[in-house]
């Protein structure tokens, strides 16, 4: 598994073996991510953190990951204070960051931005989300969470719930779960169904996902319930949004229908999809999942900068 100088743009850039390798390496990072053990693995290395769009978990966990490895972080979380505001191209901003750092992490509202950044940078580029495109590190931390909690991904029965039409997270996850041959069920309001292209990709890998709108039935024998936010910005009119936003709310009452071992995941932020009463139940794993962003990103930074524990 040699990832030195590799750009990380899409989960499709990885084979199943490579994902397994990253997951197993990330497990070694957990005590360092928690601050229980110390390392200076990336001392002297600099990470550019270029966030052209708002982010809480992704940006903070990347920065935490670099800091835990004793690397340094430069960058911005609001392009308003940069030359982009003066009309500088992304290509030129990337050229600058490339000359100031050893690795570039970029989130950008336009699809393909990370791939463009990789063209202009000699340093490796990690895509931290490009519009409705890819968010590979989210997918890796989701797989890491499932693997850690359920011990394997292959035999997992997983329900993907919510906005399956526009959500980039669920598209990548459906692809990656199919690599493992997991049993997948899609639950969504009729207007937010999983796109045909994504289903076709699953089928090409030999997985036949089930589609339904009945959540209660879907979770009866599931191992994982992965919920996503219904994104207001995707709806042309507020009425349509209001009609679907409350379609599925995960409550303790609903979870009584599910096996005790079922875990609930969510990429966060959540709005109304999960009632806060669920937070204190053994089902809730979304905060653990958010933490898992740190070890997985530590593993990736370490691997692509060629410094292994």
């Amino acid at each position, binding site marked *: 598994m040699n990832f030195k100088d590799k750009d990380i743009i899409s989960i499709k850039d990885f084979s199943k073996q490579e994902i397994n390798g990253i997951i197993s390496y990330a497990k070694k990072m957990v005590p360092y991510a928690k601050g229980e053990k110390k390392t200076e693995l990336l001392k002297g290395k600099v990470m550019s953190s270029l966030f052209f769009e708002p982010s809480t978990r992704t940006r903070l966990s990347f920065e935490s990951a670099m800091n835990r490895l004793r690397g340094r972080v430069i960058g911005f979380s609001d392009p308003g204070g940069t030359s982009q505001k003066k*009309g500088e*191209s*992304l*290509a030129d901003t990337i050229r600058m960051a490339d000359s100031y750092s050893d690795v570039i992490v970029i989130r*950008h*509202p*336009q*699809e*393909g*931005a990370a*791939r*463009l950044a990789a*063209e202009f940078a000699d340093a490796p580029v990690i895509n931290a989300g*490009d*519009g*409705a*495109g890819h968010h590979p590190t989210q997918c890796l931390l989701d797989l890491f969470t499932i693997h850690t909690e359920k011990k394997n991904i292959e035999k997992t029965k997983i329900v993907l719930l919510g906005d399956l039409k526009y959500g980039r997270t669920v598209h990548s996850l459906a692809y990656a779960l199919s690599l493992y041959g997991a049993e997948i069920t899609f639950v969504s309001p009729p207007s937010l169904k999983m796109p045909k292209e994504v289903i076709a990709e699953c089928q090409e890998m030999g997985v036949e996902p089930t589609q339904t709108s009945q959540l209660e039935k879907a979770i009866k024998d599931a191992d994982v319930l992965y919920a996503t936010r219904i994104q207001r910005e995707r709806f042309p009119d507020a009425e349509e949004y209001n009609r679907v936003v409350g379609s599925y709310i995960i409550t303790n009452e609903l979870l009584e229908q599910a096996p005790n071992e079922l875990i609930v995941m969510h990429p966060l932020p959540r709005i109304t999809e999960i009632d806060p009463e669920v937070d204190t139940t053994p089902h809730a794993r979304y905060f653990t999942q958010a933490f898992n962003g740190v070890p997985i990103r530590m593993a990736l930074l370490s691997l692509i900068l060629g410094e292994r524990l």
Partner: protein
Amino acid sequence: MKALKIPLIREGTVIDHITAGQAVNVLRILGIPGTQSSTVSVAMNVKSRLVKKDIVKVENRELDPHEVNKIALIAPKATINIIRDYKVVEKHKVKLPKEVVGIVRCSNPTCISNAREPVKSRFTVITADPPRVKCYYCEREPEDIADRII
């Protein structure tokens, strides 16, 4: 004997079996006439067996097959004929390259290739006939390639 609608050429290139209505786009892709002074004849909607086709004839210029292959994007059944002394000395079908650069604009308005960036549009070919391509940057597949010729 039926008269030919456009005359035979002595030297040059004939692009035959172009999808009807696409001759003008073919010329755009090839940058013809551009700075060349060659005589160019275009015939559109010519009856050929049961279907209609377009034909382009470029005199005194042998087009580079690699260059011409790009037209397979909109005319996958086209043939290239190199003419010398009124005879066809080379004939082959167009073959779409693995990647097409700077010819088609991405259909996704929020694709980075449509922003003010110093890059040309870039598409990976999925299938040659029917021509299906995918944006290298945003991975979207345009449905209407002919309408997106730059």
